[in-house]
Protein backbone atom coordinates (compact mmCIF):
# COMPACT_ATOMS: atom_id res chain seq x y z
CA UNK A 1 0.00 0.00 0.00
CA UNK A 2 2.79 2.29 0.97
CA UNK A 3 4.72 1.59 -2.22
CA UNK A 4 1.63 2.35 -4.30
CA UNK A 5 1.15 5.70 -2.58
CA UNK A 6 4.79 6.56 -3.10
CA UNK A 7 4.47 5.76 -6.80
CA UNK A 8 1.47 8.07 -7.07
CA UNK A 9 3.33 10.85 -5.32
CA UNK A 10 6.36 10.40 -7.59
CA UNK A 11 4.15 10.34 -10.67
CA UNK A 12 2.28 13.44 -9.54
CA UNK A 13 5.55 15.30 -8.88
CA UNK A 14 6.95 14.45 -12.30
CA UNK A 15 3.70 15.55 -13.95
CA UNK A 16 3.70 18.84 -12.04
CA UNK A 17 7.33 19.44 -13.03
CA UNK A 18 6.59 18.82 -16.70
CA UNK A 19 3.59 21.17 -16.63
CA UNK A 20 5.60 23.86 -14.83
CA UNK A 21 8.48 23.55 -17.31
CA UNK A 22 6.04 23.76 -20.21
CA UNK A 23 4.45 26.90 -18.86
CA UNK A 24 7.84 28.58 -18.37
CA UNK A 25 9.09 27.68 -21.84
CA UNK A 26 5.83 28.75 -23.38
CA UNK A 27 5.93 32.09 -21.55
CA UNK A 28 9.48 32.73 -22.77
CA UNK A 29 8.42 32.08 -26.33
CA UNK A 30 5.50 34.47 -26.06
CA UNK A 31 7.59 37.30 -24.55
CA UNK A 32 8.29 39.89 -27.29
CA UNK A 33 11.90 40.42 -28.20
CA UNK A 34 13.54 43.54 -26.57
CA UNK A 35 13.20 46.75 -28.50
CA UNK A 36 15.11 49.83 -27.27
CA UNK A 37 12.61 52.50 -26.24
CA UNK A 38 12.76 55.66 -28.32
CA UNK A 39 14.98 58.28 -26.59
CA UNK A 40 12.76 60.31 -24.33
CA UNK A 41 12.98 63.87 -25.73
CA UNK A 42 13.27 66.28 -22.83
CA UNK A 43 11.32 69.50 -23.14
CA UNK A 44 13.34 72.63 -24.00
CA UNK A 45 15.02 74.38 -21.06
CA UNK A 46 14.48 78.03 -20.24
CA UNK A 47 17.73 79.94 -19.82
CA UNK A 48 18.07 83.38 -18.23
CA UNK A 49 20.99 85.52 -19.39
CA UNK A 50 22.15 88.45 -17.26
CA UNK A 51 22.92 91.63 -19.17
CA UNK A 52 23.53 95.11 -17.77
CA UNK A 53 20.79 97.69 -17.55
CA UNK A 54 21.55 100.95 -19.44
CA UNK A 55 22.79 102.72 -16.28
CA UNK A 56 24.90 99.69 -15.32
CA UNK A 57 23.45 99.69 -11.83
CA UNK A 58 22.58 95.99 -12.07
CA UNK A 59 21.49 93.16 -14.35
CA UNK A 60 18.29 92.72 -16.28
CA UNK A 61 17.41 89.10 -17.16
CA UNK A 62 16.81 88.15 -20.79
CA UNK A 63 15.46 84.65 -21.31
CA UNK A 64 15.52 82.19 -24.20
CA UNK A 65 14.87 78.47 -24.72
CA UNK A 66 17.41 75.81 -25.63
CA UNK A 67 16.94 72.27 -26.92
CA UNK A 68 18.34 69.84 -24.34
CA UNK A 69 21.63 68.18 -25.20
CA UNK A 70 23.08 64.88 -24.00
CA UNK A 71 26.16 66.59 -22.60
CA UNK A 72 26.00 69.31 -19.94
CA UNK A 73 29.21 70.92 -21.26
CA UNK A 74 27.62 71.36 -24.71
CA UNK A 75 24.59 73.03 -23.15
CA UNK A 76 26.69 75.42 -21.07
CA UNK A 77 28.88 76.28 -24.08
CA UNK A 78 25.77 77.14 -26.06
CA UNK A 79 24.59 79.46 -23.28
CA UNK A 80 27.97 81.17 -22.93
CA UNK A 81 28.20 81.78 -26.66
CA UNK A 82 24.76 83.35 -26.53
CA UNK A 83 25.96 85.61 -23.67
CA UNK A 84 29.00 86.61 -25.76
CA UNK A 85 26.70 87.53 -28.69
CA UNK A 86 25.04 90.16 -26.50
CA UNK A 87 21.46 91.11 -25.67
CA UNK A 88 18.62 90.97 -28.16
CA UNK A 89 16.42 93.24 -26.06
CA UNK A 90 16.40 96.98 -26.59
CA UNK A 91 18.40 99.04 -24.17
CA UNK A 92 20.31 96.24 -22.50
CA UNK A 93 24.08 96.39 -22.50
CA UNK A 94 26.55 93.64 -23.49
CA UNK A 95 28.93 92.55 -20.77
CA UNK A 96 31.60 90.60 -22.65
CA UNK A 97 34.31 92.60 -24.47
CA UNK A 98 34.10 92.57 -28.29
CA UNK A 99 35.84 89.79 -30.25
CA UNK A 100 36.06 87.54 -27.18
CA UNK A 101 35.79 83.83 -28.02
CA UNK A 102 35.02 80.90 -25.76
CA UNK A 103 38.00 78.59 -26.26
CA UNK A 104 36.91 75.73 -24.03
CA UNK A 105 34.81 74.88 -21.00
CA UNK A 106 35.44 72.45 -18.19
CA UNK A 107 33.13 71.44 -15.35
CA UNK A 108 34.41 69.64 -12.28
CA UNK A 109 33.07 69.23 -8.74
CA UNK A 110 30.44 71.95 -9.11
CA UNK A 111 32.87 74.49 -10.57
CA UNK A 112 32.69 75.67 -14.18
CA UNK A 113 35.92 76.82 -15.84
CA UNK A 114 35.15 78.84 -18.98
CA UNK A 115 38.33 79.56 -20.92
CA UNK A 116 38.19 82.78 -22.97
CA UNK A 117 40.47 84.17 -25.67
CA UNK A 118 42.91 87.01 -24.84
CA UNK A 119 40.46 89.66 -26.14
CA UNK A 120 38.54 89.12 -22.91
CA UNK A 121 41.23 91.19 -21.17
CA UNK A 122 42.75 93.14 -24.07
CA UNK A 123 39.44 94.64 -25.22
CA UNK A 124 37.98 95.25 -21.79
CA UNK A 125 36.80 98.81 -21.10
CA UNK A 126 38.23 98.88 -17.55
CA UNK A 127 36.76 100.36 -14.39
CA UNK A 128 35.36 98.65 -11.33
CA UNK A 129 31.78 98.79 -12.60
CA UNK A 130 32.73 97.46 -16.01
CA UNK A 131 34.77 94.63 -14.50
CA UNK A 132 32.12 93.58 -11.98
CA UNK A 133 29.42 93.45 -14.65
CA UNK A 134 31.57 91.32 -16.97
CA UNK A 135 32.46 88.85 -14.22
CA UNK A 136 29.06 88.44 -12.60
CA UNK A 137 27.10 88.29 -15.85
CA UNK A 138 29.05 85.08 -16.53
CA UNK A 139 28.96 83.73 -12.96
CA UNK A 140 25.25 84.48 -12.47
CA UNK A 141 24.25 83.09 -15.88
CA UNK A 142 26.05 79.78 -15.29
CA UNK A 143 25.37 79.23 -11.59
CA UNK A 144 21.72 80.30 -11.65
CA UNK A 145 20.75 78.27 -14.74
CA UNK A 146 22.53 74.98 -14.08
CA UNK A 147 22.14 73.25 -10.73
CA UNK A 148 25.33 71.29 -11.44
CA UNK A 149 27.31 74.57 -11.27
CA UNK A 150 27.80 76.31 -7.93
CA UNK A 151 30.82 78.47 -8.67
CA UNK A 152 32.76 79.78 -11.65
CA UNK A 153 36.49 80.21 -12.09
CA UNK A 154 37.47 82.30 -15.11
CA UNK A 155 40.38 81.30 -17.36
CA UNK A 156 42.01 83.24 -20.18
CA UNK A 157 44.12 81.47 -22.80
CA UNK A 158 44.05 78.34 -20.66
CA UNK A 159 45.32 79.94 -17.45
CA UNK A 160 43.83 81.28 -14.25
CA UNK A 161 43.86 85.08 -13.97
CA UNK A 162 44.35 87.43 -11.03
CA UNK A 163 42.00 90.10 -12.37
CA UNK A 164 40.59 91.51 -15.62
CA UNK A 165 41.02 95.25 -15.06
CA UNK A 166 42.88 95.45 -11.75
CA UNK A 167 40.05 95.49 -9.22
CA UNK A 168 38.23 92.19 -8.62
CA UNK A 169 40.04 89.22 -7.13
CA UNK A 170 39.59 86.38 -9.63
CA UNK A 171 42.14 83.96 -8.23
CA UNK A 172 39.40 81.79 -6.68
CA UNK A 173 36.02 80.55 -7.94
CA UNK A 174 33.15 83.00 -7.47
CA UNK A 175 29.57 82.41 -6.31
CA UNK A 176 26.69 84.29 -7.96
CA UNK A 177 25.97 87.86 -6.87
CA UNK A 178 22.24 88.24 -6.33
CA UNK A 179 22.46 91.89 -5.25
CA UNK A 180 23.20 92.86 -8.84
CA UNK A 181 19.99 91.40 -10.23
CA UNK A 182 17.45 94.08 -10.98
CA UNK A 183 13.77 93.40 -10.53
CA UNK A 184 12.89 95.62 -13.47
Amino acid at each position, binding site marked *: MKVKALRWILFGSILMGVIFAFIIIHQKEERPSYIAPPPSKEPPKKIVLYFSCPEMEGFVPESFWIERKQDLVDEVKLVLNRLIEGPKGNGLVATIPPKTRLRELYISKGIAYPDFSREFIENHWG*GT*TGEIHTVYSIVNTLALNFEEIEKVQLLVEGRGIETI*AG*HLDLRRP*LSPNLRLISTR
Partner: protein
Amino acid sequence: LDVLSLKSESFTQKMNLITRGWGIAILILLLQPSALCLMGRYTIVIDPGHGGEDKGGEGQGGSIENEVVLSIAKRLKYELEARSPEVKVLLTRNKDHFVPIRDRISFANSNDAFLFLSLHTNGGPISSLKGFEVWYYNEGRMGGSRRFGEFIQEELRKILVDRGMKQERFLFLKKLKMPGVLVEIGFITNPLEELRLKDKIFKERIAHALSSAILRYIEEKG
Protein backbone atom coordinates in the same frame (compact mmCIF):
# COMPACT_ATOMS: atom_id res chain seq x y z
CA LEU B 1 39.29 135.47 -19.53
CA ASP B 2 36.97 133.34 -17.41
CA VAL B 3 39.48 130.52 -17.46
CA LEU B 4 42.30 132.89 -16.56
CA SER B 5 40.34 134.37 -13.69
CA LEU B 6 39.44 130.86 -12.44
CA LYS B 7 43.09 129.85 -12.63
CA SER B 8 44.29 132.90 -10.76
CA GLU B 9 41.48 132.34 -8.22
CA SER B 10 42.63 128.75 -7.75
CA PHE B 11 46.25 129.94 -7.33
CA THR B 12 45.16 132.46 -4.70
CA GLN B 13 43.16 129.73 -2.94
CA LYS B 14 46.23 127.52 -2.90
CA MET B 15 48.42 130.27 -1.47
CA ASN B 16 45.80 131.06 1.17
CA LEU B 17 45.70 127.41 2.18
CA ILE B 18 49.46 127.17 2.52
CA THR B 19 49.71 130.44 4.42
CA ARG B 20 46.83 129.53 6.72
CA GLY B 21 47.99 125.95 7.32
CA TRP B 22 51.58 126.78 8.09
CA GLY B 23 50.64 129.98 9.92
CA ILE B 24 48.60 127.93 12.36
CA ALA B 25 51.43 125.41 12.67
CA ILE B 26 54.02 128.09 13.52
CA LEU B 27 51.64 129.72 15.99
CA ILE B 28 51.06 126.39 17.76
CA LEU B 29 54.80 125.73 17.89
CA LEU B 30 55.48 129.15 19.39
CA LEU B 31 52.81 128.69 22.03
CA GLN B 32 53.59 125.07 22.81
CA PRO B 33 56.82 123.45 21.57
CA SER B 34 55.47 119.98 22.38
CA ALA B 35 53.07 120.44 19.48
CA LEU B 36 56.00 119.52 17.24
CA CYS B 37 55.27 115.87 17.86
CA LEU B 38 51.73 116.35 16.51
CA MET B 39 53.02 117.28 13.06
CA GLY B 40 52.47 114.58 10.49
CA ARG B 41 50.96 112.21 13.03
CA TYR B 42 48.25 111.05 10.61
CA THR B 43 49.76 109.16 7.71
CA ILE B 44 47.40 108.98 4.76
CA VAL B 45 48.31 106.65 1.91
CA ILE B 46 46.95 107.72 -1.46
CA ASP B 47 47.06 105.03 -4.13
CA PRO B 48 46.87 106.20 -7.75
CA GLY B 49 45.52 103.05 -9.43
CA HIS B 50 47.27 101.13 -12.22
CA GLY B 51 50.57 102.50 -13.69
CA GLY B 52 53.24 101.54 -16.21
CA GLU B 53 52.16 98.75 -18.53
CA ASP B 54 48.86 98.55 -16.64
CA LYS B 55 47.27 101.65 -18.13
CA GLY B 56 43.76 101.10 -16.78
CA GLY B 57 40.81 102.49 -18.72
CA GLU B 58 41.16 104.68 -21.79
CA GLY B 59 38.93 107.50 -23.02
CA GLN B 60 37.97 108.19 -26.64
CA GLY B 61 39.88 111.47 -26.40
CA GLY B 62 43.12 109.68 -25.51
CA SER B 63 43.08 110.12 -21.72
CA ILE B 64 44.59 107.23 -19.82
CA GLU B 65 43.42 106.27 -16.35
CA ASN B 66 46.87 105.79 -14.80
CA GLU B 67 47.92 109.34 -15.78
CA VAL B 68 44.66 111.00 -14.70
CA VAL B 69 44.64 109.43 -11.23
CA LEU B 70 48.36 110.13 -10.66
CA SER B 71 47.78 113.79 -11.42
CA ILE B 72 44.81 113.95 -8.99
CA ALA B 73 46.79 112.08 -6.31
CA LYS B 74 49.66 114.61 -6.47
CA ARG B 75 47.21 117.50 -6.14
CA LEU B 76 45.51 115.77 -3.23
CA LYS B 77 48.83 115.32 -1.40
CA TYR B 78 49.68 118.97 -1.92
CA GLU B 79 46.23 120.13 -0.79
CA LEU B 80 46.04 117.89 2.29
CA GLU B 81 49.49 118.74 3.61
CA ALA B 82 48.80 122.40 3.03
CA ARG B 83 45.50 122.28 4.90
CA SER B 84 46.72 120.34 7.91
CA PRO B 85 50.26 120.09 9.31
CA GLU B 86 49.07 117.04 11.27
CA VAL B 87 48.72 115.09 8.02
CA LYS B 88 51.53 113.37 6.16
CA VAL B 89 50.63 111.99 2.73
CA LEU B 90 52.44 109.08 1.11
CA LEU B 91 51.78 108.02 -2.48
CA THR B 92 52.07 104.37 -3.52
CA ARG B 93 53.62 105.64 -6.76
CA ASN B 94 54.66 109.16 -7.77
CA LYS B 95 55.43 108.47 -11.41
CA ASP B 96 54.06 106.33 -14.22
CA HIS B 97 55.38 102.92 -13.33
CA PHE B 98 53.87 99.60 -12.40
CA VAL B 99 53.48 98.74 -8.71
CA PRO B 100 52.04 95.32 -7.80
CA ILE B 101 48.87 95.57 -5.78
CA ARG B 102 50.26 93.56 -2.86
CA ASP B 103 53.14 96.06 -2.60
CA ARG B 104 50.69 98.94 -2.35
CA ILE B 105 48.95 97.22 0.55
CA SER B 106 52.12 96.29 2.39
CA PHE B 107 53.33 99.87 1.87
CA ALA B 108 50.23 101.21 3.66
CA ASN B 109 50.44 98.56 6.39
CA SER B 110 54.16 99.00 7.04
CA ASN B 111 53.76 102.77 7.27
CA ASP B 112 50.98 102.27 9.82
CA ALA B 113 48.68 104.49 7.76
CA PHE B 114 45.60 106.01 9.34
CA LEU B 115 43.63 105.87 6.08
CA PHE B 116 44.04 104.34 2.63
CA LEU B 117 42.46 105.86 -0.46
CA SER B 118 42.75 104.24 -3.88
CA LEU B 119 41.96 106.48 -6.86
CA HIS B 120 40.57 105.15 -10.13
CA THR B 121 38.41 106.22 -13.05
CA ASN B 122 35.51 104.05 -14.09
CA GLY B 123 34.75 102.41 -17.42
CA GLY B 124 31.88 100.76 -19.25
CA PRO B 125 30.84 99.50 -22.67
CA ILE B 126 28.59 102.52 -23.34
CA SER B 127 29.64 106.16 -23.31
CA SER B 128 26.63 107.59 -21.46
CA LEU B 129 27.62 106.30 -18.02
CA LYS B 130 28.55 109.06 -15.58
CA GLY B 131 29.24 109.78 -11.93
CA PHE B 132 31.43 108.57 -9.10
CA GLU B 133 31.32 105.42 -6.97
CA VAL B 134 32.82 104.55 -3.59
CA TRP B 135 33.78 100.92 -3.02
CA TYR B 136 34.88 99.14 0.13
CA TYR B 137 35.74 95.55 0.89
CA ASN B 138 34.83 94.68 4.42
CA GLU B 139 33.53 96.98 7.08
CA GLY B 140 33.96 94.47 9.93
CA ARG B 141 37.66 93.84 9.48
CA MET B 142 38.68 97.37 8.69
CA GLY B 143 36.07 99.20 10.78
CA GLY B 144 35.61 102.79 9.61
CA SER B 145 35.77 102.24 5.86
CA ARG B 146 32.08 102.84 5.43
CA ARG B 147 32.13 106.03 7.48
CA PHE B 148 35.12 107.26 5.47
CA GLY B 149 33.19 106.44 2.30
CA GLU B 150 30.20 108.46 3.52
CA PHE B 151 32.37 111.57 3.96
CA ILE B 152 33.74 111.10 0.45
CA GLN B 153 30.22 110.76 -0.94
CA GLU B 154 29.08 113.96 0.80
CA GLU B 155 32.01 115.95 -0.55
CA LEU B 156 32.20 114.56 -4.10
CA ARG B 157 28.44 114.86 -4.53
CA LYS B 158 28.99 118.62 -4.80
CA ILE B 159 30.75 118.21 -8.15
CA LEU B 160 29.81 114.78 -9.57
CA VAL B 161 26.76 112.51 -9.83
CA ASP B 162 26.69 110.03 -6.93
CA ARG B 163 26.26 106.38 -8.05
CA GLY B 164 26.41 105.20 -4.46
CA MET B 165 28.61 103.26 -2.07
CA LYS B 166 29.11 99.60 -2.90
CA GLN B 167 30.82 96.58 -1.44
CA GLU B 168 32.79 93.92 -3.30
CA ARG B 169 35.58 91.39 -2.91
CA PHE B 170 38.49 93.48 -4.11
CA LEU B 171 41.90 92.22 -4.99
CA PHE B 172 43.63 94.41 -2.46
CA LEU B 173 41.42 96.08 0.12
CA LYS B 174 40.95 92.93 2.21
CA LYS B 175 44.51 92.88 3.55
CA LEU B 176 44.54 96.47 4.71
CA LYS B 177 44.95 97.01 8.41
CA MET B 178 43.34 100.45 8.34
CA PRO B 179 40.08 101.86 6.94
CA GLY B 180 40.32 102.09 3.19
CA VAL B 181 38.14 102.71 0.16
CA LEU B 182 38.45 102.81 -3.59
CA VAL B 183 36.92 105.78 -5.40
CA GLU B 184 36.00 105.71 -9.07
CA ILE B 185 36.11 109.40 -9.99
CA GLY B 186 33.83 109.55 -13.02
CA PHE B 187 33.79 107.51 -16.23
CA ILE B 188 36.78 108.03 -18.49
CA THR B 189 34.73 106.24 -21.19
CA ASN B 190 32.22 109.11 -21.16
CA PRO B 191 33.58 111.86 -23.49
CA LEU B 192 32.12 114.66 -21.33
CA GLU B 193 33.54 113.29 -18.09
CA GLU B 194 36.83 112.62 -19.84
CA LEU B 195 36.97 116.29 -20.84
CA ARG B 196 36.31 117.34 -17.25
CA LEU B 197 39.00 114.96 -15.99
CA LYS B 198 41.50 116.67 -18.31
CA ASP B 199 40.75 120.06 -16.82
CA LYS B 200 43.23 121.23 -14.15
CA ILE B 201 40.66 123.24 -12.25
CA PHE B 202 38.28 120.30 -12.12
CA LYS B 203 41.07 118.07 -10.82
CA GLU B 204 41.76 120.64 -8.10
CA ARG B 205 38.11 120.61 -7.13
CA ILE B 206 38.23 116.82 -6.83
CA ALA B 207 41.41 117.03 -4.74
CA HIS B 208 39.75 119.64 -2.52
CA ALA B 209 36.62 117.48 -2.04
CA LEU B 210 38.68 114.39 -1.18
CA SER B 211 40.91 116.30 1.22
CA SER B 212 37.82 117.71 2.97
CA ALA B 213 36.49 114.15 3.37
CA ILE B 214 39.78 112.95 4.85
CA LEU B 215 40.01 115.89 7.26
CA ARG B 216 36.40 115.36 8.38
CA TYR B 217 37.17 111.70 9.08
CA ILE B 218 40.28 112.62 11.08
CA GLU B 219 38.29 115.18 13.03
CA GLU B 220 35.68 112.57 13.94
CA LYS B 221 37.87 109.50 14.52
CA GLY B 222 41.36 110.89 15.12
